């Protein structure tokens, strides 16, 4: 087996260009290895690449762990980070790994789509910034090229004043989301809704956003309408974790509660 241990980004992207499989926290890749689904013989460990762990302002390095996000991230992202796995998982797993794995249930993704984050990717040839809706294309499918590495997440310069994350699962710790959601609202009412686990990629509930953004003081009937619109815009499926019907119902209820939290 061939294992690279770079400390610089240049050496890391070079290894990826040579065909090495990137390994960050290992919380997804090693499960596949342990279950004999994958057996990467050429791997580049990213844990000691300092540039990937850098976090300055709105640029969060791909190697930033949930543990760090939990204690210093923007509100809804910190709330999401706190629900990821267990302390052991949060010490290892990274925001970059969440994005690259692109699981519909990725806990960080509803926030990233709600604030229109961009994914910074780099190859030995150079870098590019990819809007989230270009990056995520299907269940665990992204437009990341084979020779590219996700190096950072770019959040917008200013984030909405009010943000809330929520997740539905069978217990409150150590659980994969049945439904995940982030609602943000600015002081002038602009509202965004990021949804997870209710479609092949994370989604935005655009029509619900537009409706509720135009309402300064939502009434009971506005909230009910918002809930229904979010449910309608979700694209859930039935799988081993839940049913389409339950997810559709739960995501509407959850989005409404998070909006109410933003309005308080």
């Amino acid at each position, binding site marked *: 087996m061939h294992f690279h241990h770079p400390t610089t980004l240049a050496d890391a992207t070079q290894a990826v260009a040579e065909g090495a499989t990137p390994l960050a926290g*290992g919380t997804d*890749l*090693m499960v596949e290895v342990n279950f004999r689904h994958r057996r990467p013989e050429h*791997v580049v460990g990213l844990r000691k690449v300092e540039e990937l762990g850098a976090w300055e302002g709105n640029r969060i390095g791909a190697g930033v762990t949930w543990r760090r996000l939990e204690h210093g991230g923007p509100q809804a992202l910190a709330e999401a980070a706190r629900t990821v796995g*267990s*302390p*052991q998982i949060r010490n290892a797993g990274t925001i970059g790994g969440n994005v690259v794995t692109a699981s519909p249930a990725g806990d960080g993704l509803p926030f990233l789509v709600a604030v229109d984050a961009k994914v910074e990717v780099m190859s030995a040839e150079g870098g590019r910034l990819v809007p989230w809706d270009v990056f995520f294309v299907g269940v665990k499918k992204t437009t990341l090229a084979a020779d590219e590495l996700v190096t950072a997440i770019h959040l917008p310069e200013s984030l909405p004043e009010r943000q809330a994350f929520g997740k539905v699962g069978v217990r409150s710790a150590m659980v994969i989301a049945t439904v995940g959601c982030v609602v943000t609202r600015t002081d002038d009412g602009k509202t965004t809704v990021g949804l997870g686990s209710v479609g092949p990629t994370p989604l935005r509930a655009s029509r619900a956003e537009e409706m509720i953004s135009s309402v300064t003081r939502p009434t009971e009937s506005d909230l009910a309408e918002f809930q229904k619109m979010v449910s309608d815009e979700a694209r859930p499926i039935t799988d081993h974790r839940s049913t389409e019907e339950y997810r559709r119902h739960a995501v509407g209820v959850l989005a409404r509660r998070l909006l109410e939290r933003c309005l308080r």
Partner: protein
Amino acid sequence: MIVEFLLNGEPATARIVSPVSLLDVLRDQLELPGSKNACEQGECGSCSVVLDGEIVCSCLVMAADVGDSEVVTVEGIGGDGLTPVQRAMHHSGAVQCGFCTPGIVVVAADLFARNPNPTTLEIKEALAGNICRCTGYGAIIRSFEKLARETS
């Protein structure tokens, strides 16, 4: 490839020929069977170790990735006799079949090192990633509540 790292304070060497986990190498090659192998997916916490100062599941660490790192397993926690965490568990009957115990000792040692006086909620959150299939959580949590009271 040969991987050299610091294991329980001593230099260690492992010969790695495939992308196996640190857990496998600890148990099968380095004769440290304290870390247990159960779920192999980071769910149960029975393989918890300290890697470069942070608790992680050793089943999710690729052994090849620990070169130049520092690993502490349950065998490396404490010295002669029982540590306060181990004594607390022993005195409160917080061990049933014992399979989850090493992982809980590693995690609780980390908790008390960072926060000598954790609340019940903090104890529960710290242990959220350690599953006890005997469902002996009550005694485990009580043992650490007692320890927290003693150290406050």
